[in-house]
Every structure is written in C-alpha cells, then in structure tokens.
C-alpha cells in the first residue's frame, strides 16, 4: 500500500468517526427542534378544527 493510499484510508476512517459524532449531534438537535415544535402547537385549536370538519361532513355541508 502506497503512502497515498494510506492517506486516503485514514481520511475515510476519520470522516466516518466524524460522521458518527455529527449524526449524534444531528439527532439531538432534531429531537430538540421537534420537541419545541410540538410544545408550540396549539393542540386544542387543531382538535376543534378537526371536530368542526367532521361535523360538517356528518351534516352534509
């Protein structure tokens, strides 16, 4: 194996290690963002809207 090949292999392995670290960070950030989005959602409003829609369908409107 030439020095060039060993360099390429080391680059590949180190990027894999970094990829794992970034994947963990991505998961953490994504879960934080999802939690924030869920917390911000007005569920009562959504539920009332859905009930109104169902009632409209049942009433044939």
């Amino acid at each position, binding site marked *: 194996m030439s020095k060039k090949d060993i360099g*390429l*292999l080391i*680059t*590949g*392995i180190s*990027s*894999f290690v970094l*990829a794992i670290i970034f994947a963990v960070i991505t998961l953490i*950030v*994504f879960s934080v963002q999802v939690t924030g989005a869920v917390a911000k959602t007005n569920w009562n409003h959504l539920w009332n809207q859905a009930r109104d829609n169902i009632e409209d369908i049942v009433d044939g409107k």
Partner: protein
Amino acid sequence: MTKYEYLGELEKRLEALPHKDVCDIMDEIRNHFEEGIASGKSEEEICESLGDVGELADSYKDGATLPQIISRREKANRPKNSGPDTQGIFFVILFNLFVGLPAWLSVLGILLGLAFVLLILVSLIVFFISSVFMGSAVGFVASIVLLCITLMLLSVLIFSLVVLGFKYFAKGTAAYIKWNRKVWFEGLEG
C-alpha cells in the same frame, strides 16, 4: 565431466556445511548417478541434468532438496510457449467457472453498489440543501445543515473506499489473469 570429477568438485564446494550433511548430500548425488546410469544415461548427461557444481552446492546451502533442484532445472530448461498444459486448461476453466468468476463478480458488484450509494448520498445532500434554500424546511434548518455535514462525511468515507477498492480490484484482476495464464501453459506444478 565424469562422475568422480563432479563429486570431487561438489565435496570441495560443500566444505562449509557440517560433515554429516555433506555425507548425506554426497550419498544422495551418488544414488542419483547410479539410478541415471541404470536407466541408460551417460555420466555426462547426468552431470548436465544436475547443472553447474557451484549452483548445485549453493542450492544445497540454501536448504533445497535434490528433487527441488532437479525440478527447478527442468523448469528453467523447458522451452517457453511449448503449448498449453491439458490439466492446467481444465483447472483454469473449472476454477473460473465455480470460484474465480463468481468471486470476481461479487467484488465488482459490491464496488458498484458502493458507487451507487455514493451517488444517492450526493443526491440527498443536493435535495436537503435545495429544500433549505426553497424555504420548505422552516424550523429545521439546523438539523438539515447538520444532516448534510454528516452525509458529506459519509460520502468522503465511501469515496475513499470506492477509489481504493477499484484500484486494488484492477491490480488483483491483472495478477489473477497472469496466474491463470501461467496455470494454463505450465499446469499447477509449474
């Protein structure tokens, strides 16, 4: 050169070896001469088949045995391109059909699969970046940027594997073809 001249010269050249080893070697060579003469060969022909005394002594010093030395000499004296070896041809065909070709195709398939995965990763990176710029990822920009970095790092790994894989695959294929050619013409023992 006569048998006695050859043996005398050989004994001189083997002086560096232990006495017991020299005796064993001399006995072996004497037997070889006797067998050769019994089968109708002249002393001259037997000397010729054993080769130069110095080379024979060096081979013994390197730890070779008489059958190995004779086999090497016969191989060296064999005319090149004397035609394919029948057993070699059968071996090459069967080996390639059941082992060589399936293994070669499997490795090629894995490498092409890796190249395809690389293509998919690059497409995903382009897709996620465009989704950020088109405003369809509002609220998740940080996650998508991080995801793109992760995918890029994975792409670097797969790229290096694909480059190294194809390089050594090409080298291996060339060596394998060379070996097949050797077996085809010289058989497995050659």
